[in-house]
C-alpha cells in the first residue's frame, strides 16, 4: 500500500519540513521498507504542486539524518539499516526519544529518581 503525504497550507511549519517529518515517520515506523526507492524529485514536486527545491531540501535533510541515500543515476532510496545512521544523528534522535519519555513520565506524576530507577531496572 502506498503511504500518503499531505502538506497542510495552514501549518506554519515550512513545506520541506512537513515533508521531511512525514517521510521520516513513514521510514522509522517501517511503513516504507529499507531499500524502497523514493519518488523522483520531479515526480513528487509535480504530485504535490510544490517547487522541486522543496522536495530536494526534504531529501537532503533525510539524507543528512541517514534515513535515505542518494546515488548518482540511481535516485533516492531508504537506507538499508539503522547502522547507516551517523553517530551525531543517532544521539540526536535518542535524545528526542528520551525527552519525550521523561515528559510523559512527569505528566504521570513520577519523580525524576523514580524515572531513573525504572529506566535502570529496565536496562537490567
Amino acid at each position, binding site marked *: *500500500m*502506498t503511504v*500518503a503525504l499531505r502538506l497542510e*497550507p495552514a501549518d506554519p511549519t515550512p513545506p520541506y519540513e512537513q515533508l521531511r517529518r512525514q*517521510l521520516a515517520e513513514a521510514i522509522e515506523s517501517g511503513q516504507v521498507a529499507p531499500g524502497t526507492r523514493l519518488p523522483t524529485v*520531479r515526480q513528487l514536486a509535480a504530485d504535490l504542486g*510544490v517547487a522541486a527545491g522543496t522536495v530536494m531540501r526534504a531529501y537532503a535533510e533525510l539524507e543528512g539524518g541517514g534515513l535515505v541515500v542518494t546515488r548518482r543515476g540511481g535516485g533516492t532510496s531508504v537506507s538499508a539499516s539503522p547502522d547507516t545512521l551517523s553517530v551525531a544523528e543517532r544521539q540526536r534522535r535518542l535524545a528526542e526519544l528520551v525527552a519525550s519519555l521523561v515528559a510523559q513520565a512527569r505528566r504521570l506524576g513520577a519523580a525524576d529518581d523514580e524515572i531513573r530507577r525504572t529506566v535502570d531496572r529496565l536496562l537490567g
Partner: protein
Amino acid sequence: MSSVLSPLTFVFFGLPLTVVTVLLIAAAVLAVRRSRAITFDEERYPGLAALRRATLRARYVGIAGSVIVFFVVATLGRFGQGLFIAPAAAGAVVISAILVGQRLTYTRARTEGIAGVERREVGDYLPARLVTIVAALLLLLVVVAAWTTLVATSDESGLARAFTHSCTAQLWNQTGHHEEVHVSTSTPFPGGYYTAGTAIGILAVLALAWVGLVATTRRPRNGADLELVRVDDALRRQTAEGIVTAFGLVVATTLAGLCYAAAVTVGAEACTTAYGLGSWALAAVAFVSLALSLRFAVIVLVPGDGSERAS
C-alpha cells in the same frame, strides 16, 4: 459456365477474399472483447473523469486527423515516395493528439499538497507483449530496409528505386552449349530513394512516442487512495497502450508496404529460385505485417479498460 470455382480462380480471388474475411472477423471479435470501459465513481473522482474524457476525445481527433494527413502526405514526392512516409506522418498525428490531450488536462486530477510515496516509471505502464511484438517488427523493418537499400540500383532518372535481375539462359547452337546472361531492371523497388525518408519518419515517431510515454508517467497523481491509484494507473496504461500501438501501426504498415513493393519487383522476373523464394518470403512478411496492422488499428480505435499489461 461452371458454377464451381476453378482452382486458379480460388487462388487468385477466393483465397484473398477468405483471408480478408477471416481477418475482419478476428478484428471485430478483438474490438468486442476490448470494448470495456474503465469503471469508477465519477462523482468521487471528477478530475480523473475529466482526464479520461479529454484523453479519449484527443485520441479520436488524432485518428481523424491522421487519416487526412496520411492521404495528403501519400501524394507528396515523385514515384509514390510519399506513400513510404505517410504512415509515420499519420502516426505522429495520433501520438501528438494524445500528448496534447494529456497536456491540456495535465493537472486536472491533482490536489496540491497530496501525494503518495511511490516511484512511477515508464515500464510500469508499458504493455509488455505489445512492446515485444512492436520491437520485433521494428527490427525486421530495419533488416528489410537495410537489405533493399543495399541491393537497390538506379533507375533512368538516377534515383535508387530499381532492382536489377540477372538471369542466365542456357543456349545451344551449332558451336555447342553456352550461357547467356540477361540483365533487366524493374521498378519501383524500395531503395534509398524511399527508405531514407522512411527512416527519418520512423525515428521521429519513435522519439515522439518516448516523449508521450514519459509525459504519461510524469502526469501528477492525486494522492495514495487505493481506488484512485487503481483508476489512475488504468488510465495511464490505456494511454501508454495507445502510444505504443500507434507506433506499432506505423512500423507494421511501413513494413507491409516495403515488403509488398519489394516482393512484386523481385518476383517480376523470377528467373532463378532465389528470386522466387525471396519474393514469396517478402510477400509472407507483408501479409503478417498487414494482419498485425489490423490488430493495432483495432487497439488504437478501441482503447479498452487498461486492465491488461499485455493486450
